[in-house]
């Protein structure tokens, strides 16, 4: 019920943006009338989920549950705070930009990355059939991520007191510690069985790529996410890497595991070919989007800092039509991004088709055909 309400809210929000009611804040574009039902339904979802969590039979909570629980508490907090400070009781001036940046960072770094980590920590030990190698390191990584993760995200903000981007840049560096410790803990769990698991399990392939992208995203933000790439596509790339790569791929991997078991109780989706297609197209898509936007961002950053270069021709047009030092009007960095989105569309359609086949198989199994 609450989930349906959520979907209604999302639909209303998308239509609201198309009707010109976008709020204008990055990652918070939905107008207030779409956000209120979203908050209400999420509070319901979170409340029931936390109640279920409270009444669990096994008192010892596993790592995945930590991340899920943190996300369930974190998202309503940041969403309600940001919405009320931006669209309700509006704060003055650039504090709005600070609030919007804080929300975006918490959404990407804690809620979405946390969900991806929940998936990683659930499936990776399960697939390689080993217990989690280093619970202490994992625990430290979890708490440090919650502590540090939300502070980044304002490193590229201008027109604010200088300490805000400075603190944020430092946090972008510090967050390497929890991410590295969580990934090291996962690596110790799978050590020596990577190739075997990659061949045997499609979900593992998704998760390995997602973990790699997580490391890549925090590394590139820490080292290049400051003033040098301010106002370029480089930051756009970060949103897409976390949303489509880290969260998207791990969620897709989880779905490939869950859907067949939930429908007919089998281990695989009906079409292995389609599953492979989903993996390779989504991998190509995410890599294309990430590489395209990042390289275009570096071209732009160079032009931004160098007044002798023409902003439009050397920056925007060149990043659309350039590949390394070659001038290729047919294939540039930004066109690579478009190709990446196209590949992601193919991946989504292939997954949808496979999902449809699974549902059909379910109907056939249960009631002798969907008649």
């Amino acid at each position, binding site marked *: 019920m609450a989930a349906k309400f959520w979907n209604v809210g999302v639909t209303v929000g998308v239509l609201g943006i198309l009707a010109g009611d976008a709020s*204008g804040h990055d990652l918070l574009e939905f107008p207030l009338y779409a956000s209120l039902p979203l908050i209400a339904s999420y509070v319901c979802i979170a409340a029931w989920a936390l109640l279920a969590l409270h009444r669990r039979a096994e008192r010892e909570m596993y790592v995945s549950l930590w991340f899920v629980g943190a996300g369930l508490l974190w998202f309503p907090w940041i969403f309600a705070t940001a919405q009320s400070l931006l669209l309700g009781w*509006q704060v*003055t001036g650039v504090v709005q930009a600070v609030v919007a940046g804080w929300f975006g960072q918490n959404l990407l770094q804690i809620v979405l990355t946390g969900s991806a980590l929940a998936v990683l920590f659930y499936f990776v030990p399960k697939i390689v059939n080993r217990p989690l190698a280093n619970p202490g390191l994992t625990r430290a990584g979890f708490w440090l991520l919650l502590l540090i993760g939300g502070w980044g995200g304002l490193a*590229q903000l*201008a027109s604010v007191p200088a300490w805000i981007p400075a603190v944020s840049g430092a946090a972008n560096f510090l967050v390497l510690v929890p991410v590295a410790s969580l990934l090291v803990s996962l690596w110790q769990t799978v050590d020596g069985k990577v190739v075997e698991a990659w061949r045997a399990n499609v979900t593992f392939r998704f998760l390995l790529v997602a973990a790699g992208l997580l490391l890549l995203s925090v590394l590139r933000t820490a080292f290049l996410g400051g003033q040098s790439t301010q106002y370029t*596509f480089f930051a756009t790339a970060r949103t897409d890497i976390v949303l489509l790569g880290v969260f998207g791929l791990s969620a897709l991997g989880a779905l490939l595991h869950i859907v067949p078991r939930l429908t007919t109780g089998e281990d695989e989706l009906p079409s292995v070919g389609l599953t492979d297609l989903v993996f390779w197209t989504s991998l190509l898509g995410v890599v294309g989007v990430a590489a395209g936007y990042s390289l275009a961002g570096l071209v732009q950053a160079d032009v931004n800092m160098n*007044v002798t270069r023409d*902003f439009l021709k050397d920056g925007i047009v060149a990043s659309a039509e350039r590949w390394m030092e070659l001038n290729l009007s047919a294939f540039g960095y930004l066109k690579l991004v478009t190709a990446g989105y196209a590949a992601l569309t193919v991946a989504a359609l292939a997954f949808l088709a496979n999902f449809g086949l699974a549902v059909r198989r379910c109907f056939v199994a249960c009631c002798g055909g969907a008649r």
Partner: protein
Amino acid sequence: MAPQLQLGALAPGPLPNSTEVYPPTRPGLAAQGAEVYRSLGCAQCHTRAVRQTQALYGARLNEVGNSPNTLLLPGLGGSDPKPVNLDLLLALATIRPDLTIAPLPLPPALVGDTNIVARLKQFADNVALLKRNDTKVGINRPTSGPSVNDLAGKLPAAVFERVSIEAGERAVKYLSDAGAKAELTFYNLGPDIERGWGARRTVAQDYVNDSPVLLGSVRVGPDLASLATRAPEKFAAPWKFASTNTAAEFERHLLVHLYNPRVLAKDSTCPSAGYLFNKQKPEIRAAGEPLTVPGTDAPVFPKHEARALVAYLLTQRVDTGVAEAPVPSAPKAVPAAAPKAPMKP
């Protein structure tokens, strides 16, 4: 919480030495345009924040001034007697070792004036002393080329441009001690400012009247924080004002950009907002002036939203100095020819 504690109480404040308040409230049409700006998502591709990488200083000489050694000498660069501050020439020669010192000939009319003869003799001695000192500390002063006399002859003159604050203050002190009137100038520097996107960096104060505050995060198009003050030659497709009614021309230019950005800049990636224009003359009385788009025959009629958006864009100016980000003051008269290469003392 800290940003809110620090910035939350910011309000439009009075400008020093003026009755005006900064930032001023937007007029009604421009306030409506802010909503169009948000609604169309202009902030997805345009930032409204000017960055500054550094600030450098300079010294400007405004008046020759009066000192005991200011002489009225006729026949220098004109027939009228002209005040020449001998102390100032020496001070300029001291701080600018790249300039020559032209000897001051004794005008024939003043040969009998013992006072002036003595002063000029003293000046010549001082110059000789200075030159000897130059050789001692290893300064290779040129023997021909621009001289300190030229520099002091055309005021206001930029004695130093784009130097450290120490060098600028030292120069101002030397010039003031010589009795001249000099001031410390400064230069806001950075690619954004050199691109003509604003006279200074933007600060929190600039946005206190905005809601929502749309700073933007990526520059697919140029920065708009100070669009209304951008010189026509600083646009992607440089243009020129054809008449003296620059405001109307600027408005027309922006309307054409909204209608079809490719008309003005061939490579622009900005989406066209043609839906903000009527092809036929609307039936309302306040239809406004039709807009002739270059390269097309039939005029189009901008809708209210288009005019509001342009009015909003024309309020985008970052040319008022505030305490934390001042704007260089313009020299009082036509500035003298600046030295070609900025030099370090």
